[in-house]
């Protein structure tokens, strides 16, 4: 087979970490090559070195037979490298259409902008992956899922020889993922090489020809996907056995801790009724735009409700600010980790204590000992991979950053913890650790609202699942319902039934 990319002895260091250690890799035409590994093992760094975002410390990158010691993004594009970055790299204030077309135009060294052409390119690509996004909307107004779809369209718009996809499916629903995977397979047939990075092992197995496993910046090896199964893969990735235990509610207290009654906000969600007891882990799922994030924000006081009420421990409460929410023992793990969850230039310990500054203070004086203790505990419990709690959080990998954000809210010991897609971009090892923690806290009496797209994840971790479609609560499944064999199938059917109506309306 024809080799498109060959990486030789590539090394890259950042302050405090050696992100890549003498990596050798070769990728062939018409191959789907998956990179797997825990958070922070260097997958994204490898991609960025090849696409010209980072300059390697040592080593060679051979693209189409041309040897580079470092490249510019333009050179990389010229060699046919296209990337869907983990952080998407979109332009917030530009329209969807322009975002999709702009790389292509800039690569073609166009001098003059033809807006019709931009629309044409964008429309082609959107049709290709079969989604309807308003092309004149600015990206800043899109949901995470639509942003991801936009980024995918952008990468597809250019004729790539090798396409890197760094966790392209984190915000997508199952349906969209399936469509994307289908496209990937088609592209492969056309002779493209595709490098696919994901933490969702089922995705990896459904498309991969070769799987390269990284651990701690080192390559463990290349495997044929047929030679691996989920268990062995995770074993290679983590160096240990991991298992998802199924959650069963143990708490005996059946008094509802939080009741949501007829909660409505026009155009976002309607007449939502949910009752949550101590120890409940309630899954909340639905299509993109189904209003889950909006509901979560409302429960956290960031999105005004219009009618209905929220009761905490039987008392009706008005949650009109996060401070109030915190007072009532409600925590929210936000969807947009980078902007809403992290203080990117501050130390880990400061991030951990950020929701607790007042509680850690005595008469206004911050107790730094307590803070450090808290941070140490958090890092230890959630197994954050970091040199110390004084490390600036921006230098951690995405997954490790997320763990710190979870840790920060767990430290507040909330009664109800709303997690908006908490395991996006997190490796199985860490996921298992996080699930374990969640279960433990639920066992201790915490109630959890778990928002996710992954039905398997919800099935394993929740004792109750609420499915939303177009802002309405379609069905609520109890533990008994979930124990039925066809539960997973039922949920995905419900979701797609919602989707059908959506498509109808769009047409």
């Amino acid at each position, binding site marked *: 087979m024809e080799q498109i990319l060959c990486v030789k002895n590539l090394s890259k260091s950042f302050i405090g970490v050696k992100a890549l250690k003498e990596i050798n890799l070769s990728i062939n035409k018409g191959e789907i090559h998956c990179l797997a590994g825990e958070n922070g093992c260097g997958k994204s760094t490898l991609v960025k070195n090849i*696409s010209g*975002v980072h300059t390697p410390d040592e080593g060679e990158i051979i693209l189409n037979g041309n040897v580079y010691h470092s490249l510019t*993004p*333009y050179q990389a*594009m010229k060699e046919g490298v296209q*990337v869907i*970055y983990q952080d998407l*790299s*979109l*332009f*917030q*204030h*530009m*329209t969807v259409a*322009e975002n999709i077309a*702009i*790389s292509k*135009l*800039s*690569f073609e*060294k*166009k*001098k*003059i*902008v033809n807006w019709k052409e931009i629309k044409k390119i964008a429309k082609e690509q959107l049709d290709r992956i079969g989604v309807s996004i*308003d092309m*004149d*909307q*600015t990206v*800043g*107004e899109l949901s995470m899922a639509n942003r991801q779809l936009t980024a995918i369209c952008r990468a597809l718009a250019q004729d790539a020889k090798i396409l890197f996809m760094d966790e392209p499916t984190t915000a997508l629903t199952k349906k969209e993922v399936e469509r994307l995977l289908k496209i990937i397979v088609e592209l492969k047939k056309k002779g493209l090489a595709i490098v696919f990075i994901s933490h969702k092992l089922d995705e990896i197995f459904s498309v991969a020809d070769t799987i390269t496993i990284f651990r701690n910046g080192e390559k463990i090896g290349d495997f044929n996907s047929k030679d691996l199964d989920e268990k062995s893969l995770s074993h290679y990735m983590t160096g240990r056995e991991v298992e998802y235990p199924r959650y069963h509610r143990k708490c005996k207290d059946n008094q509802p801790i939080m009741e949501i009654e007829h909660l409505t906000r026009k155009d976002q969600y309607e007449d939502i009724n949910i009752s949550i007891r101590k120890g409940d882990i309630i899954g909340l799922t639905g299509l993109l735009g189904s209003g889950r*994030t*909006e509901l979560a*924000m409302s429960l956290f006081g*960031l*999105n005004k409700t219009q009618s209905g009420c929220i009761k905490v421990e039987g008392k009706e409460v008005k949650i009109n600010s996060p401070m109030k929410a915190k007072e009532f023992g409600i925590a929210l793990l936000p969807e947009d980790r980078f902007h*809403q969850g992290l203080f990117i230039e501050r130390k880990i310990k400061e991030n951990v204590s950020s929701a607790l500054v007042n509680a850690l203070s005595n008469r206004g004086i911050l107790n730094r000992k307590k803070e450090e203790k808290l941070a140490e505990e958090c890092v230890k419990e959630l197994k954050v991979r970091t040199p110390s709690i004084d490390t600036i959080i921006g230098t951690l990998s995405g997954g490790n950053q997320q763990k710190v954000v979870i840790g920060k809210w767990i430290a507040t010991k909330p009664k109800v913890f709303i997690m908006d897609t908490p395991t996006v971009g997190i490796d199985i090892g860490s996921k298992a650790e996080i699930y374990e923690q969640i279960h433990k806290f639920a066992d201790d009496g915490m109630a959890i609202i778990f928002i996710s797209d992954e039905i398997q994840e919800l099935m394993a971790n929740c004792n109750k699942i609420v499915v939303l479609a177009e802002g309405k609560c379609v069905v609520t499944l109890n533990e008994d319902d979930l124990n039925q064999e066809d539960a997973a199938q039922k949920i995905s059917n419900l979701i797609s039934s919602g989707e059908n109506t959506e498509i109808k309306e769009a047409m």
Partner: protein
Amino acid sequence: MKIKKVDQFQKILLLIIIIYSILVSIKNPAFLHFETIFDIIRTSSTTMIVAIGLLVVMISGGIDVSFMAIALFGSYTTINVMIALGIDNLGIAFLFSGMIGIGLGLINALLINWLKLPPFIITLGTQNLYHGVMTTFISDKSFGAGVLPECLHEFGQGTIFKIVTEDGAVGLTISLVPVLLIGIATWLILYKTMIGRGIVAIGNDEESARRAGFNPFKIRLFVYAYSGFLAGIMGIIYVAQINALYPNKLVGNELMVVAAVVIGGTKITGGQGKIFGTILGVTIIYLLNSTLILIGLSSSWNNLFVGAILVVSVAITSYQERIKNRSHLIFTE
């Protein structure tokens, strides 16, 4: 859809302008003369030019507070040389001053690119630097009306056409021509060329722009050179209009221009901004400052009035934006 949304914002500005104008006319019908518009066009023309330059810089995610120093440097040096050599040619004046502007703008861009620091600080430094260099190494003398090259004086007094009314002639200033040309050119650059899109792109996210194949360094060079060029042009028009040359004018009036651009709907964080909005913003500021006498406000109440209106219009426009963002669950602080 895009255009509709932007108009929404500009509508508010227009509304503010219209309501204010009505109030002034009620107080003093003299405001309703043709003359008023012509006078506002003339007095605001210089600010329009630098505001458009600043708009481009701010769209690219930067800010420039050295443009007044550049305008002064360019025009002062150019006219000094012209006086010394006895040159009397408008084209040369614009060209030379524009070139100086480009040069100083490039220095800004190089420093920003090298130091990777907020442009506000860098241009604050270069503002002092340019002015210091000019007055230390070139000259710090003032020149009165008669000494300036004749062509400048003619240009400053020039009109496109005149309307004769019962109390004298009213002319539309010729300075409108460069303003219009610059406005159109800037619009073309921003919306019809790739470099314009690059400017918007680096304003949105520099790293993403780099990944999309743009060269932020080159774009930045262009942006600051363009703003410097416009400043150089503006300097000449300014001198022509006031018909005298001082080594210490202009510098210190930057922030009002920044205010005008921001009131016009330009994001201080970059990536977004409209030429028409900027024009409206400048108009609001000038309207305010040039109607105080008409409404019979005594001098000691000037600032109180201007400040109050400024605060109110900033509050209204920002609050609109905030409401819109919050309803989309976008949290900008």
